[in-house]
């Protein structure tokens, strides 16, 4: 260990909420110029630890030292004054004002009592340059990609305050590969400047790419802190889950010869399907008993394609034929009636209805298909909800719990349950495993495979190529809002990457 005091030293932190112990006697040390990954499943206590460090929550016991000095973090603002900055998973900036305004918000330079715009833009530009980024800071933030917005959030966190500690909470969950690498470059640069970074993510690859040390939490307890270089990946996962990971590997589908021979029933055939500015005309066929993986970078048109097939948007070109019948009107309700379901990409905005209960969320689509007057009795609703809570292993105290109180993975399962309850023939899953922990991820992958075996047609859209490769029977690749290739399951990841990147 070094002689200089650690940047952050947490000792014996405990915190309990009514009914649950969120943290129990946890130690955590962050050194200068270190990227320290904080790992654990949902509910392991990562968020609580961060909240304590940022002053949102106060520990029941334990001490916090910054630079060797004992401190009490009173509030988020106080934590910023102490030099701790946080960038959260969801970018919480104003998309309708300029990049410069976002970065400088709260410490705008003044001249003659009004904002000195020129100086502000200059300062913002410098701040952005620090991250090796060169963009027009006078443009509204919303005109940039999510990745750039994320960078802006980071430079905002660093700006004005003498930040020593930067906390990145799931910063990469909405970034594609290239953007993630960009972010990592920035992180390494900041690290070389002596800033300590706490990095929270669900992506194992990324942890090994940038992290120096890894701290694992499980069920509110410290499992241990390890050097990234000496901790094998399998070991890490095992420590996070507290069990061996044979089932993770066992998911990949083993096809029997019989299955191969079976004539597959064509459920959905899209011909020349397209919408100007959203998706270039393409053909797509979905068969029963099959998982179609969709690979493509963020913004390649994956979500647009899903929205078109499900009827969120109406195509201006081509047709969709569902079970031999042409779709004349396009709306979610029409699709629902024909047995097509979509678990949307943006869980919070398009998926869950937060202030409704788990039960109501689960029966929502089923009730929609029944129409306005055939009412599912409360008893029937509870039966259906209980069935899917059990089937999908949704962790909730009861079916009357508000869905917003559930963890991300469980919310995802609730949305999945909502659609399974309607017994769809085609299930489109847009990023179903984003932002959820390894265990839940594996469960959802397993479920998709099982559903396909039962005869459903699944469309699996994901940014994680590895999981697309593992569970898909066929893989369609999108690039620049266009379908560029389709592979059968034997394709290797190199070919896929090259196709996605357009270098083939």
């Amino acid at each position: 260990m070094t002689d200089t005091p650690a940047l952050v030293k947490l000792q014996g932190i405990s915190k309990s909420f009514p009914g649950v112990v969120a943290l129990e006697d946890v130690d955590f040390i962050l050194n200068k110029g270190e990227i320290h990954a904080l790992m654990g499943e949902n509910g392991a206590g990562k968020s609580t630890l961060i909240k304590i460090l940022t002053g949102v929550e106060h520990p029941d016991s334990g001490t916090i030292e910054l630079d060797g000095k004992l401190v009490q973090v009173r509030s988020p603002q106080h934590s910023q004054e102490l030099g701790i900055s946080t960038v959260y998973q969801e970018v919480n900036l104003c998309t309708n004002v300029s990049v410069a305004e976002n970065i400088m918000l709260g410490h705008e330079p003044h001249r003659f009592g009004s904002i000195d715009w020129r100086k502000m833009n200059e300062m913002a530009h410098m701040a952005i340059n620090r991250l090796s980024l060169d963009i027009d800071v006078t443009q509204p933030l919303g005109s940039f990609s999510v990745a750039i917005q994320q960078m802006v959030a980071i430079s905002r966190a660093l700006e004005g305050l003498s930040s020593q500690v930067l906390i990145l909470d799931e910063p990469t969950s909405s970034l594609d590969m290239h953007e993630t690498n960009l972010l990592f470059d920035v992180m390494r640069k900041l690290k070389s400047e002596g800033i300590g970074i706490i990095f929270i993510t669900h992506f194992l690859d990324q942890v090994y790419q940038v992290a120096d040390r890894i701290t694992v939490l499980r069920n509110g307890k410290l499992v241990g802190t390890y050097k990234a270089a000496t901790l094998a990946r399998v070991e890490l996962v095992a420590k996070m889950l507290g069990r061996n990971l044979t089932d993770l590997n066992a998911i990949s589908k083993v096809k029997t010869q019989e299955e191969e021979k079976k004539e597959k029933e064509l459920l959905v055939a899209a011909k020349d399907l397209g919408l100007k500015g959203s998706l270039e005309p393409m053909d797509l066929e979905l068969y029963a008993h099959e998982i179609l993986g969709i690979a493509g970078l963020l913004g390649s048109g994956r979500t647009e394609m899903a929205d078109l097939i499900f009827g969120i948007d109406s195509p201006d070109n081509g047709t969709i034929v569902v079970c031999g019948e042409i779709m004349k009107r396009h709306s979610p309700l029409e699709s629902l009636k024909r047995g097509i379901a979509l678990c949307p990409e943006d869980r919070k905005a398009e998926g869950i209805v937060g202030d409704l209960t788990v039960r109501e969320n689960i029966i929502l689509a089923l009730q929609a298909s029944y129409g306005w007057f055939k009412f599912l009795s409360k008893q029937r609703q509870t039966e259906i909800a209980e069935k899917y809570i059990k089937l999908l292993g949704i962790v909730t105290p009861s079916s009357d719990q508000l869905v917003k109180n559930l963890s991300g993975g469980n919310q995802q399962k609730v949305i999945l349950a909502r659609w399974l309850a309607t017994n769809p023939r085609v299930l489109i899953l847009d990023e179903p495993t984003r932002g959820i922990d390894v265990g839940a991820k594996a469960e959802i992958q397993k479920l998709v495979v099982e559903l396909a075996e039962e005869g459903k047609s699944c469309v699996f859209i994901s940014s994680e190529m590895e999981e697309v490769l593992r569970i898909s029977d066929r893989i369609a690749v999108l690039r620049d809002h266009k379908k560029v290739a389709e592979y059968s399951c034997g394709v290797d990841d190199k070919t896929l990457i090259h196709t996605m990147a357009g270098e083939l």
Partner: protein
Amino acid sequence: MRQKSFLGRFRESQLFWPLVAWVIILIFNAFVDPSFFKIGIMPDPVYGNHLYGNLIDVFNNGAPLILVAIGMTMVIATGGIDLSVGAVIAISAAMGAVLINPALGNKLISNEILTKDATNTPLAIIILADLAAGTLCGLWNGFLVSRVRIQPMVATLILMVAGRGIAQLITNGQIMTIYYTPYFWFGNGYILGLPVSIYIVAVVLLLGWLLVRKTPIGLFIESVGINAKATYYSGINEQNVKLLAYAFCGFCGAIAGLILSSYVHSADGNNNGLYYELDAILSVVIGGTLMTGGRFSMLASAIGAVVIWTFTVTIYSLGVPANALLAAKAVLVLVVILLYSDYSRRLINRLFERRRGIRHDTAIPRDTAS
């Protein structure tokens, strides 16, 4: 797990806070003016003997507001707002008045007509026309909000302003006096000693309850109010849900206009139902339905309207001049908003928890003994 006591469940229900507010006003009256609670029997040759007293007045005079508050609840639950209900009341009243008068146009103010049941239009047609006019207004609002996608406040502002003009067009710019005995029954009649308007409110509440709790519509409305996009993604026609809510609100406004014009025997495009939209919104707020939409309770809003009227009658019976009423109401608004703020709720909840905690302790030995 311990089953929550009836009191515990009641405290979490949406009805709890508006009832508390009402009880507080009643207790205030009990100390200041016990005669507030006096209820007597009034002999009445026309409608039979009936009850009278301040409390009866609260419900009788408050009926139009209660109705409008019920409709407003549904709109607010979808995340919208309807500023036009006052104007809808005026339109409905004007519609009734114009159909009752046998002679149209400027000739209509003549003594002969004003003192006789001289209408040529059957009562059923009058009522239907009233309700249709209001519902149509609601559909118009709903169309603007759900299809044209105008902000609810702006969309309904259009009818709020234009509606009074429409009402005046209907009555040819006159304050129309109504004389038609069967029509008076809605605002002045009694059944079993209680005002007819109370029964109308009860029926509308029942209909509303059936509509939202015995069909999926209530769930759809709440879902739209919480997250319209996710609701649409779930296959629910979010536009029609909104359309229905505004139409229902217009329908409620129409009934309110019917009762109000029947009560005052006239239709006045400028003043019928003036500021009712604001009182209705306040009722919904007192009833605990969030202005951002979501979970709602029509009954709680109805109690909210009762709170406002009880307060109004209290102020009057204290002898406060009518023109000071608005100032007094402002105080009520302030108190309600303070009482409903997160801070004071936490404070009050903590008081409850502490009391319950003590009870728990004393209950434990008994539990373990058995």
